[in-house]
């Protein structure tokens, strides 16, 4: 769970056999442990492969955008779902960094937040977020999210 040389926790250890090509790989970012666990389960229930991270910096490193790019560990990511309020780099700042990258700007980004602030929501959508989800996360939100992905 986020241990080792700046890596992200990969909890899909039971899927070691066949690599199902159509299982979307989702990167979930949240500094809150309970929220990470919840979103991970919701995504797995929707047949997604999930990698979790506890802050934006680790995500950037994982995606090859950070200062410590880990050779050969950049896997294809189909969706990034991130909490807005995080210490250090916020979800919004992470969104901007991703959209600025020629390599990753096509990856859909979803922002989650406990707070329903319209200006925050429009700010994120304007910056290119695919969707804004209100926490606490529910199964219906993830279903909607997946639908967005499949389009």
């Amino acid at each position, binding site marked *: 769970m986020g241990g080792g040389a700046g890596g992200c926790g990969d909890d899909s250890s039971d899927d070691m056999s066949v690599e199902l090509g159509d299982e979307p790989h989702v990167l979930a970012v949240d500094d809150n*442990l*309970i*929220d990470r*666990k919840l979103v991970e*389960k919701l995504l797995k229930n929707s047949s997604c492969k999930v990698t979790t991270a506890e802050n934006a910096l680790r995500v950037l490193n994982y995606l090859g955008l950070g200062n410590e790019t880990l050779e050969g560990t950049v896997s294809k990511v189909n969706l990034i779902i991130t909490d807005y309020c995080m*210490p250090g780099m916020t979800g919004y700042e992470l969104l901007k960094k991703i959209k600025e990258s020629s390599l990753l700007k096509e990856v859909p980004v979803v922002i989650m937040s406990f707070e329903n602030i319209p200006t925050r929501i429009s700010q994120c959508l304007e910056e290119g977020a695919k969707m804004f989800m209100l926490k*606490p996360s529910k199964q219906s939100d993830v279903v909607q999210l997946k639908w967005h992905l499949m389009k």
Partner: protein
Amino acid sequence: MDLFQLQRRLVDYRASLYHEDFLDEQFSQLQDLQDENNPDFVVEVVTLFFEDSERLLNELAKALEQPIIDFKRVDAHVHQFKGSSSSIGAQRVQKACIAFRNYCEEQNVEGCLKCLQQLRHEYSLVKTKLESMFQLEQQILSAGGSIPM
């Protein structure tokens, strides 16, 4: 007590927790997520919540003992606590956090200390209730029954 009575007791107990606002809708979301692949999901998440909460309560106590209180830090901890309690559906704990944050904003030490007490109280209540509920579930499983939904 036979199996049927145990199951009945669990259903009633759970209903009372919702009725008294200890738990809300979000907790049922958690229960719905539990399946054969993850039969202990709820217990796992709730255990994580207990551990995290205890850590946060300690941090809060320490932060409020300082000669010069860093209210931003206190607020950050309460924010975390509010987040986790909301995610597992611990409604009364979440409400206590909201009140706490208001006092942080006002930089009101007295208010914060009172809120911390209240928060500890609500947390220990919900912890006891959830533990009792899990115990009942265990008893049912041990007696060879299944948990009524």
